[in-house]
Every structure is written in C-alpha cells, then in structure tokens.
C-alpha cells in the first residue's frame, strides 16, 4: 500500500504507533509470565515495589516446579499424546482427503459436507456423552482416552487442509503413472503424496498445537496426577484450594508454552499457510 507519501509523520501515525500498541498488547502477558516466574516471593507479594521490574532474579520457582511437582511427567504425557494423536490424524486425514479431492465417486459430496460439518462441531457439544462412553470403555485415567478422542477434532481439520493440497497436483502426473501400470494406491503413494509435503507439515504442526492446547477432554478423563497433561496439571495441582503458587504457575505456563513456541518458530510459514487455507484459498 501507499505509505511513503506524507513523510515520517504519516508513517508514524499509520504504522509505528498502532504497531507498537498491538505489540505491547500481544506480548505483555508473556513478559509478565517471564518476569513473575523469576521473582522471589518477597518481591512478588510486595505492592510497594515497581512490579514491571525485576530486582533479585531467582530460579527458585523453576527448581521447585521441577522437583516438587510432576511437571516433567506432565510434559512427557503432553508430548506423547500430541505426537501420537497428530500421527493418527494425519494418516486418517489422508485416507479421507485423497478420494474426496481426486476421485469422483458416488457419495463424495455427502462425505465432504459431513467432514466439514464435523470439523465445525465444537467440543462442548460432545463432552458429556463422550465422558460416559470413555467411562464405559474403561479408559478413564489412561492416555489412550485422549489419544483416541483428540483425533475427532484433528482428523476433519487435517482432511480439510490436505484436500486443498491434493487438488493442486495435476491429474496428468497421476494418469502417466497409471498408464505405466501403477495402481491407484501406488499412484497416490509414489506420485501425489510426495508432492504434498508442505501440506503435511502444515497439517502436522497445526494438529500438534491444537493437541497441546486441548483442555476439556483432558480435564474430564485424566483425574490422576501421573496421567495428566500440562494444562490440566497446572490448573488442578498448582492451584491448591485458595492458595495460588504464582511463581510456580508462571514458570509452568512459560515452560509449557516453550515446546509449541519452538516448533512454531521453525515452521511459521507453514503454520500461517494452514491457518489461512480454509478462508482464503477456499
């Protein structure tokens, strides 16, 4: 857009001022998390001290979090659940998306509609019956319960995203492989899927962040300390009654965000592509 006209005043007004506002708004809670987790309690609960600054940094809250709570175990659980449910969702997502995107068969329109609708059904509509079903299956307090239920949100998403990528591969490539004697499956496996690697990365990291973010099912299904994920562990066990261990809570919030943030920082472009795929490319 035309921003160069009007000199630095206009640019400050149109760009730097609003940008500064949005950045401060966006980043302040993270700054606050970090600084709180490094403050000793004497400083944390002293309203006379300027709260934005850090006078005597300490790692005590981190040490306490890692030694006195099962935070590392929760992190491990979260990773296992996120990785396995993402993998399952990618496989099932391909199996859904491929025929819908590339083959015209009876029933395809109905299935495509159902997948899109399933993607949009929010969890709170399903959690009560789901809790009963998981109970009856005897899966309460197992990681299996969430590994099995997270893909209900992730599969439709992955399928929807991958369909867009699958459609971009020219039909001629597949036909050439078929003429050379490849089966449908071989044409898919050897020709189309390798060309859609960016799609898999987008769908994969998006599903991974969604799985890390999940809270409702984990809260209901995982009631024992040793199977909890980070969000549920932090809420259920770092807040004991009315006592808030703010230093530890902030340390947990920060450490719990780091895996997602690291993966995100490596794949920002893919993440953005996944985010915007549904609405812009259509």
């Amino acid at each position: 857009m035309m921003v160069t006209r009007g000199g630095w005043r206009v640019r400050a007004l149109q760009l730097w001022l609003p940008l500064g506002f949005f950045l401060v708004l966006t980043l302040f809670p993270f700054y606050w998390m970090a600084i709180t987790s490094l403050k000793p309690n004497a400083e944390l609960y002293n309203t006379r001290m300027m709260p934005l600054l850090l006078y005597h940094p300490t790692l005590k809250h981190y040490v306490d979090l890692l030694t006195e709570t099962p935070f590392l175990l929760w992190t491990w659980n979260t990773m296992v659940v996120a990785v396995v449910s993402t993998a399952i969702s990618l496989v099932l997502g391909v199996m859904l998306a491929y025929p819908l995107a590339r083959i015209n068969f009876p029933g395809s329109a109905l299935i495509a509609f159902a997948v899109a609708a399933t993607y949009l059904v929010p969890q709170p509509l399903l959690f009560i019956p789901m809790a009963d079903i998981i109970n009856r299956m005897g899966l309460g307090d197992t990681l299996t319960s969430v590994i099995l239920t997270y893909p209900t949100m992730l599969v439709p998403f992955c399928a929807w995203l991958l369909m867009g990528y699958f459609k971009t591969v020219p039909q001629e490539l597949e036909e050439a492989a078929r003429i050379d004697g490849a089966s449908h499956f071989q044409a898919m496996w050897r020709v189309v899927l390798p060309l859609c690697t960016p799609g898999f990365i987008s769908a994969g990291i998006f599903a991974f962040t969604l799985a890390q973010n999940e809270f409702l099912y984990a809260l209901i299904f995982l009631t024992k300390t040793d199977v909890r994920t980070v969000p549920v562990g932090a809420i259920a066990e770092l807040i004991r009654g009315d006592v808030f261990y703010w230093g530890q809570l902030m340390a947990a919030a920060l450490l719990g965000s780091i895996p997602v943030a690291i993966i995100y920082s490596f794949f920002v472009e893919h993440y953005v592509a996944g985010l915007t795929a549904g609405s812009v490319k259509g």
Partner: protein
Amino acid sequence: MALRSEPVAATTLSRRLPWSRLRITEGTVFSWLMLALPVLFLLAFVGYPFIYGIWLSLEDREVARSATFVGLANFIDDARDPVFWQVVRNTFVYTFAATILKAAGGLALALVLNQNFRMKNLVRALVLLPFIVPTVLSTIAWMWILDPAFSVINWFLVHVGVPRPGPSWLGNPYLAMGSIIVVNTWRGLPFYAITLLAGLQTIPGDLYEAATIDGATSWHRFRYVTLPLLRPVILIVTMFSVIFTFADFQLVYVLTHGGPANATHLFATYSFDIAMSAGQLGRGASVALAMLPALALVIVALTLYMRKR
C-alpha cells in the same frame, strides 16, 4: 471440484443409463477402501456421541445410577431455571462483543501489517503468539494480571490516584464479563489479523493505483476497494470464530469459573458444572444441546459457503 479419473466411456454410458451410475468402478472401490476407516472412526466418536447426547438429554441420569426416560423434562427445567437464561444472555453478550472487537482489531492489525517495514516477518510471527500458546497457560498469566490483590493494572491505577485496592476485575459481575471478553479478544485477534492479511495480499496493487488516479482518497480506497474484496474472507473468519467463541470453555473455566454469581457462565461452563460437578448428566446434556439451534445455523451456513467457493 474433484477431478474425474474414470474412463470416458463409463461417463458417457452413465449419462445414458441412470442405473449404470451405480456401476462400481475401480475408482469407487479404491475410494471406499480408503474412506472406510476414517469414516467409521468419525461415526463412532463424533456421530455416535452426538446421537447419544440427544438421548441423554431426554433421560434423568445421574452418575452411577440407573436412568429413567423423562422426555423433555430436562428442557422444561432449563426453561424454568433463571440461571439458564442468564447463561443465554451471557453467551450472546460474550460472543457479540468479542467478535466485534476481534474483527475490528484484526482488520486494523492486518492493515498495519500490510505495509512495508523492516523485520516484518518477525513481527508477524510474534503477533500470532497468543493464538499458538496453549490457552489455559496464557489465561493463567491473565489471572495474575487481573488478581484482586496484586493486579499490575491496579498498581498503576493506584499510583495515578484511584483509591486502594482498585477495581476488582474478576469480582465485579460487569468487570468480570469485560475481562473475559478482553482476554478472548487478546487470544483470537491474531487469527483474524493473519487471515485478513493473507486476504489483503491477494488484492492486486493496480486496483489501488487505478483508484488513486481516479482521485480516490485513502478512505475511499479502503471503503470501495479493500472492504468489498475482503468481504468473503471477513465473512468466513467471522463465522468460524463465532462458532468457537459461542462454545468457549477453557478461558472462562480458568479465569472466573462462571462467577461471580453466574455472571460469566457460558453454555459450556454451565453444562460442565451440572454434568461433571453436580453429576446430572441428563440435565447437563440438555444445556449443552441448547447451544445447537444457534450453532447449527452458523455451521450449516459456513459449510455450504465454503463448499461453494
């Protein structure tokens, strides 16, 4: 749409003879072999719970007790429950206010980010952070920002002369509603901004040049070029976000747990309290299902709209 892979002959044949459209081609067999597993999975873990939820809502069902069929009694209980109507009001206020704020703020941020400046990619990556980080964890930070005794906001307010201890952000019903709206906006705004930014980047630059030559001011360019071309994206993003704001759970559960005095209870948190805390599964399912009419409208509209494009 899906590309055809059947031989041409089959297609012409199917046009002539209606019954032969059911002819099983190799492509159809392959498609259904692929689809079988994921479709069964979704039927078992989305379709079945959905139907089962409707069934539950028609039962008087408490945890570890046998169920009795009560017809619409749970829904009648809902209609007579003043808290239920408060929940309806809360959910609409929350969804409406947060959506407006996110859409307006997101559009503003997208326009800012659409300009050229140094380290643009870094800024864009930072802006998305609230959307990436697990909601529960960032909400914990907001809890501390809004803490009754140690709120950093109040520290500043007190220092500019507001009487101690300053406003109780999560203790006053109106302020609590305002707080959850602000936190939801903080989390959801980047989604709008980044998606709208992608939409803005698809608008060809010559349109702006042509408009400028015709004497359009920057407001005119925004009003008559940007906004109309961005409309489909705005529409989709908004409908999308309405669905998930309307059914929000995590943020409210962590920040206020529906309080004070139910002032911030939404459908999801209220049905959770009834079903999980009080153990009344049937009644809880009926509250959750009460979301359905409004949600179904948006879901069907959005699904049809996305498929048409």
